[in-house]
């Protein structure tokens, strides 16, 4: 049983290229060659290539412009596939696709940036709140003082707030203490 061309490469074979190879969705375009400094413009009305985990088959192959060697390989692909060598199969895969699934799923260190950024902004927010506490906040309400809170508690018990299952139910009125 011949594994499909996609499956062989997607097993994560070590492709003998540099690990810093960057694959992106922008490909060579015969019609649209910009060498300006303001960046590459992409004609979004044409089929695009992408590396996405959730969409396995992009609208077009990765490589548009094939060298003579690539073209001859594509001709050979039209024949029986068990006559292709392993390297040829991998080459054909790399013509169709930029990254394999394992390459796409590779762990990055992005989470460190994210967590670091979160902490930085939390810290900055703390400084802002501290400044606000000194220069913005109004005076502390007198209802939060200890004495006032004690008087409030006594008044609630005197009024018999929630005497059945709630607040005053937990107070022993004979002994004058919490049950």
């Amino acid at each position, binding site marked *: 049983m011949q594994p499909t061309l996609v499956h062989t490469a997607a097993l994560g074979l070590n492709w003998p290229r540099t690990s810093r190879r960057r694959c992106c969705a922008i490909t060579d375009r015969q019609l649209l060659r910009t060498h300006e400094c303001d960046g590459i413009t992409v004609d979004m009305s044409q089929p695009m290539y992408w590396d996405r985990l959730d969409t396995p088959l992009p609208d077009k192959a990765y490589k548009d412009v094939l060298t003579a060697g690539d073209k001859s390989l594509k001709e050979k692909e039209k024949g029986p596939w068990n006559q292709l060598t392993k390297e040829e199969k991998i080459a054909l895969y790399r013509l169709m696709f930029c990254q394999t699934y394992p390459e796409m799923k590779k762990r990055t260190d992005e989470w460190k940036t994210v967590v670091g950024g979160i902490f930085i902004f939390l810290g900055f927010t703390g400084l802002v709140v501290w400044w606000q506490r000194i220069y913005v906040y109004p005076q502390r309400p007198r209802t939060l003082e200890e004495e006032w809170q004690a008087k409030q508690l006594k008044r609630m018990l005197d009024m*018999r707030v929630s005497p059945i*299952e709630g607040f005053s139910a937990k107070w022993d009125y004979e002994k004058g203490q919490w049950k």
Partner: protein
Amino acid sequence: MSLPKPVMRGLLGKRLRFHLPIAFSLSLLAAIAFKYAVTEPRKQAYADFYKQYDAVKEFNAMREAGIFESVRPSGE
């Protein structure tokens, strides 16, 4: 390479026949549990409270504590 044809129809019906009885019985169970764990003890607590409740005594206690504005404590 010939796999059996997958089931194409009746998927929702099958799911409902499995999950609906479970959903209904769990909901019923939740309602029954709430009734006997919460509402019945609460009703009993209220009943017990009012069995020994003397409204006048409570009123006088509250009056002496000075929380009313219409009746001041008996001393004043």
